[in-house]
C-alpha cells in the first residue's frame, strides 16, 4: 500500500517537474513554473521521508536545517555572482551523487553482496565518476569565476595535457571495469577510493585549461553532468523519479551547451580541449593602430540626434555593475522618443542568459532585449551603437580574418551602425587576448573609463541639456 502511494506521488512529482520547465517558455508564466517545481520537490521529500525503511530522523532534520541555513544566503548573492553560484550548486549536486553511490557500494559490500550485480556496478561506477568529477570541476569553475587568487584565470596548458588527461580517465574507467567484474573481491573496497581520487583529479585537470570566455559552455556541460549523475543514482537505487528528474536536468544542460557552442562556432571537443583564450603571442607584432577617443559631452550630442540606438552589453557591464546606470541612460533616451534596443549575444557574459538577468534587474522591460539574429537585420539602420563592456562578440575579425581564433563565430554587426561608441576600461585587448578591429574603424569613437562612470557622465550630459530647454 505504502509502495503504491509512493509510486503515485513520484509520478505526480515528475509531472510537476515537466510543467515547471514547460512554463519557463515565456516570462509571463515562468513563476508558475517555480511553484510547480517546489510542489513536486516537497511531495518527493515528504513521501520518501515517510517510507517505512526510514527509521532514523535526527540526522535528516539536522541536514535539512543546515541546507536551509546555507541555501538561503546563497540565493541572495548579487546577480553578478550568479555564474559562480550556479557552478557551486553543480558541485553540490555532484558531491551528493558521488557520496550516495559510495555509501550504497560499501553498504551492499558488507550487508548484501548479491545486490552488487554487474548492471548495478556499472551504474555505481558511472555515478561516482560523474559525481566526483563534476564536484571538483565545478569547484574549479566557481573559483575561476569568483577570481580567487590561487586559481589561475587564464588557461593553464602543458605538454601532452590532453593525452595525460585521457590516460587518467581511461585508468579510472579500467579500474571501474575491474571492479564491475569482481565487485566482492577482498581488494575491491581498497580499489574503490582510488577511482574516487582519479575522478576528483580528472575534474580539476579538465577545467584548468579553460578560459573565462568559454565559461558559459563549460557551466552548461557541468550542468548536464550533474543531471546525468542523478540519473545514474536512479539506476543504482531502482528509482524512476531520480531518472526522470535527472534526465530533464541532463537534457537542459546539453541543449544549453549546444546553443553556446553554435554561438561560438565551435565544437564540444574544441571547447574542452582547445585551451581557448591563450594570449596570442604572434599577434603582438604589426603596426600600432590608433584609437579615436571621444568625450561624454560629444557622445551625448550624437546620441540625442539618433532615432535608433542599439546597446550591446558584455561581461564588462557586469564587472562594473553598470546595469543601473544603463537603465538611466535608457530612460533619458526614451524620454526623447528615441528607440532603444539591447542586442544580446548568446555567449555575452559568463553563463547562458547572464545579460538578460542583469538588465531585468535594472528594470529594463524584457521586450527591448533582442537576440543577435533578430537585431542584425536592423543594424544598418542603427544610428548609434553603444558597446558596453563587450568585446569578442562585436569583433568583425570573426567574419573576415581567417587567422583569428574567433573566425566563424556569429557576431552582432555593431560595425554596420552609422556611429559606434565603445566603452572600454583600458587599451588592453579583451579576455580572449584578441585585438578588436571594430575599435579602429573610422566610424568608431572610444569612451575610455569605467563603464559605470562613463554612462553616468552621458546621463548627466543628457539630463543637463534637457533641463535647459
Amino acid at each position, binding site marked *: 500500500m505504502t509502495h503504491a502511494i509512493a509510486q503515485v506521488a513520484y509520478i505526480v512529482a515528475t509531472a510537476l517537474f515537466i510543467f515547471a*520547465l514547460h512554463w519557463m517558455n515565456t516570462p509571463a508564466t515562468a513563476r508558475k513554473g517555480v511553484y510547480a517545481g517546489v510542489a513536486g520537490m516537497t511531495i518527493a521529500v515528504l513521501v520518501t521521508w515517510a517510507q517505512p525503511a526510514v527509521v532514523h530522523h535526527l540526522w535528516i532534520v539536522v541536514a535539512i536545517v*543546515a541546507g536551509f541555513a546555507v541555501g*538561503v544566503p546563497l540565493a541572495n548573492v548579487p546577480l553578478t555572482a550568479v555564474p559562480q553560484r550556479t557552478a557551486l*550548486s553543480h558541485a553540490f*549536486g555532484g558531491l551528493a551523487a558521488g557520496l550516495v553511490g559510495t555509501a550504497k557500494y560499501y553498504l551492499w559490500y558488507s550487508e548484501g553482496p548479491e545486490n552488487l550485480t554487474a548492471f548495478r556496478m556499472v551504474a555505481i561506477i558511472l555515478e561516482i565518476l560523474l559525481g566526483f568529477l563534476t564536484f571538483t570541476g565545478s569547484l574549479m569553475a566557481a573559483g575561476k569565476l569568483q577570481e580567487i587568487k590561487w586559481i589561475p584565470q587564464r588557461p593553464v596548458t602543458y605538454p601532452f595535457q590532453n593525452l595525460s588527461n585521457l590516460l587518467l580517465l581511461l585508468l579510472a574507467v579500467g579500474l571501474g571495469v575491474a571492479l564491475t567484474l569482481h565487485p566482492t573481491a577482498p581488494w575491491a573496497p581498497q580499489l574503490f577510493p582510488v577511482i574516487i581520487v582519479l575522478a576528483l583529479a580528472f575534474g580539476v585537470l579538465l577545467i584548468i585549461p579553460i578560459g573565462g570566455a568559454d565559461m558559459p559552455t563549460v557551466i552548461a556541460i557541468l550542468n548536464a553532468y550533474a543531471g546525468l549523475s542523478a540519473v545514474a543514482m536512479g539506476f543504482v537505487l531502482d528509482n524512476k523519479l531520480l531518472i526522470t528528474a535527472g534526465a*530533464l536536468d541532463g*537534457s537542459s544542460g546539453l541543449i544549453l551547451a549546444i546553443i553556446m557552442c553554435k554561438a561560438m562556432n565551435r565544437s564540444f571537443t574544441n571547447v574542452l580541449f582547445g585551451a581557448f583564450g591563450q594570449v596570442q603571442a604572434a599577434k603582438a607584432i604589426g603596426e600600432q593602430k590608433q584609437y579615436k577617443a571621444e568625450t561624454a559631452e560629444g557622445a551625448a550630442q550624437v546620441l540625442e540626434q539618433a532615432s535608433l540606438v542599439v546597446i550591446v552589453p558584455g561581461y564588462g557591464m557586469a564587472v562594473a555593475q553598470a546595469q543601473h546606470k544603463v537603465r538611466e541612460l535608457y530612460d533619458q533616451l526614451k524620454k526623447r522618443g528615441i528607440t532603444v534596443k539591447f542586442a544580446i549575444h548568446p555567449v555575452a557574459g559568463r553563463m547562458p542568459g547572464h545579460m*538578460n538577468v542583469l538588465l531585468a534587474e535594472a*528594470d529594463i522591460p524584457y521586450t*527591448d532585449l533582442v537576440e543577435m539574429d533578430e537585431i542584425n537585420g536592423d543594424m544598418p539602420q542603427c544610428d548609434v551603437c553603444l558597446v558596453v563592456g563587450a568585446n569578442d562578440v562585436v569583433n568583425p575579425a570573426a567574419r573576415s580574418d581567417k587567422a583569428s581564433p574567433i573566425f566563424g563565430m556569429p557576431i552582432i554587426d555593431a560595425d554596420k551602425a552609422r556611429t559606434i561608441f565603445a566603452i572600454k576600461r583600458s587599451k588592453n585587448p579583451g579576455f580572449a587576448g584578441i585585438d578588436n578591429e571594430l575599435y579602429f574603424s573610422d566610424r568608431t569613437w572610444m569612451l575610455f573609463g569605467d563603464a559605470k562612470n562613463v554612462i553616468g557622465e552621458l546621463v548627466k550630459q543628457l539630463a543637463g541639456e534637457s533641463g535647459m530647454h
Partner: protein
Amino acid sequence: MSLLALLAQAAPAPAAGHAPADADFWGLLFVFVLASFIGMGVIRRVSRLLHTPLMSITNAISAIAVVGAILVTGGEYPPHIQAMGAVALFASMTNIVSGFLITNRMLKMFKTDDKRGGGGHA
C-alpha cells in the same frame, strides 16, 4: 564491446524467472530515454531570455538526489554510511533551497513596459 556484453548479461531476460536482487534494467532505460526526449522537447522551447533562471531551476530539480540521500541517512545502517548520506542530504537540500529561491528572485525582475515603474531598485 565487453561493457555492452556485460550490460546484456546483467539485464534479466524477460522470461527467465525472477531475479530478486536486480532491478528492471530495460524498464529503467526505457524511462530514461523517454524522459530525455521530453526534456529536449520542453527545454528547446524555453525563452532565451530565461536561460539563467532555467539553469537555476534545473539545478534545484536535479537535487532530486535528495531522495537517495534521505534513504541512506535514515535507514538502519552503520554510522559511516549514514554520515555520507547526511552530507549528501545537506548538499542536495542546499541546492533545492537556493535553486528555487534564486530562480523566483530572478523571474520577479522580468517585466514588460507597462508593468514596470513603482518598484524601486537598489
